[in-house]
């Protein structure tokens, strides 16, 4: 069975002014994706929040934490550089 594959996405942290190129892995869960996207915005151009948590959205809908990127790619036939949003979980 093949191991995790690199899968590039565009990740936008909601509130920042640009999305970034993020090297994700097909084995990444949504919290892992969120961390990889947030690191380019939170604490750089957007203030961090104490004990704040993130959530990931695809096409405007929140994706459950336990879902992996590989599952999403397979289920929705996502191409490389698909756009993901990450935001603070209220």
């Amino acid at each position: 069975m093949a191991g995790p594959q690199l899968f590039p996405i565009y990740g936008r942290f909601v509130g920042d002014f640009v999305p970034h190129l993020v090297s994700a892995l097909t084995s990444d869960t949504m919290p892992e994706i969120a961390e990889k996207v947030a690191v380019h915005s939170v604490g750089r151009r957007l203030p961090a929040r104490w004990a704040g948590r993130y959530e990931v959205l695809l096409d405007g809908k929140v994706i459950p934490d336990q879902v992996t990127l590989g599952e999403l790619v397979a289920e929705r036939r996502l191409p490389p550089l698909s756009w993901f949003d990450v935001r603070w979980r209220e």
Partner: protein
Amino acid sequence: MNRDEWYDLARDLDWTLSYVDEKQAFPDEWTGAGNIPPSAWPDWDEPFRASYREYVRVQREKDAGAYAVKEAFKRARGFDRLDVGHQAAAMLHMGAVAMVEQMAVHMEGRFARFAPSPRWRNIAVYGMLDEIRHAQLNLSFSHDLLKQAPQFDWAVKAFHTNEWGILAVRHFLDDTLLGSSCVDSAVVTNLTLEHGFTNMQFVAFAAAAMDAGDVSFSNILSSIQTDEARHAQQGFPTAAILARFDRKRAQDLLDASFWRSLRLFHLLTGPAMDYYTPLALRKHSFKEFMTEWIVHHHLRVLEDMGLMKPWYWDQFMLSLEHGHHAAQMATWFWRPTLWFNPCAGVSRAEREWLVEKYPGWEDSWGVLWDEIIRNLNAGNMGKTYPETLPGLCNLCQLPLGTALDRHHLRPYTTTYGPRLYHFCSEPCQWIFGLDPERYAGHMNIVDRFLAGQIQPMNLEGTLAWMGITQDVMGNDSFQYRWAKEYAR
């Protein structure tokens, strides 16, 4: 004989081809005549009516003046005494523009050979000589300053690198200056870019340079502008004839080129006007300049041609509030990828000016700068640098998000053939859709990165691939001194 007696005869000099077919000598893909019948071209006219003798006499006088001022300025080492913000604007201008003038030589040369009217071919010869003069003036100015600032080497070097801003400039200008038919190039370059945008920019920049004490740069810009005002006239009769016979093509060309010109102005002109120009010397904001000069002019052109406002006019007006602020933040944050030191331009006094000119500035941009400032004052320099590439537009090549602000950021995507394309805006997506085969094969920097063309796949590898060397690598032009007042 006085000139009026022979001028029309001389410029209409043409002959009936006998050894080759007309279509072989003037292929449609070069002329761009398309649906325009040959009988339309005798109506092509321009108002300058220059003869070669007059042209050479006037140009010689202009050159004598420009080079004399430049020489005096060089001997007095005047550049060293200029504000660093103005120095940065000059470095940006020379890197991004000098070779564009050289590319324009090729475009005018194409007109001189393939334009479908002998009058047009005649004046294009002067246009070609103009552009040779402009390239040489810019290179000579830059050469004088090489000992003071290695960044001026980029007047020649920039267009032989993969620096991202230069690739964005080339994506548009390779297309129109080097790769389009005469008709398309005249409408896009002469009418929209030269007459509509850069002509006005050169007037404004020349005035700003003079105010800043850069007599030489100001003088060169003014000298160039007088030529531009003449040869840009090629666009008017061409667009008028095109609009008469192919209204949709004229409208599409004008709409597409207006947006593409705007995106380059967001990148190159807006930051220089609103962030690099010393505060005391600012007369107009970029938005005021665009509204007063560019918008008014473009609407008049469209009205004269019987054409409509671009369909994206509301988005254009909104982009005047944001596009160049976005480009400013992107260029400053990704500053190691520049060949000059950018100004942040967000001291407290500068922010007050920005808010006065752009009432929503703090909410769109100030909050992002606040976090950067906090990191600068806390010594977290690493957090003020990027660790990856921004998403890039597959049309204008600029970062996604830099047409508007963070509140309007959303994906614009098109699936064409086997892949997904991203765009910074609806107009860029629309331009791609006008002729997808023209653009689909082009790989932006993110595409090239993912294809393994940039090695090693990290910031150092990317900077090396862009041709950025340590001696020019961009850093804050004021060494972050402006941020200290926020720590008090």
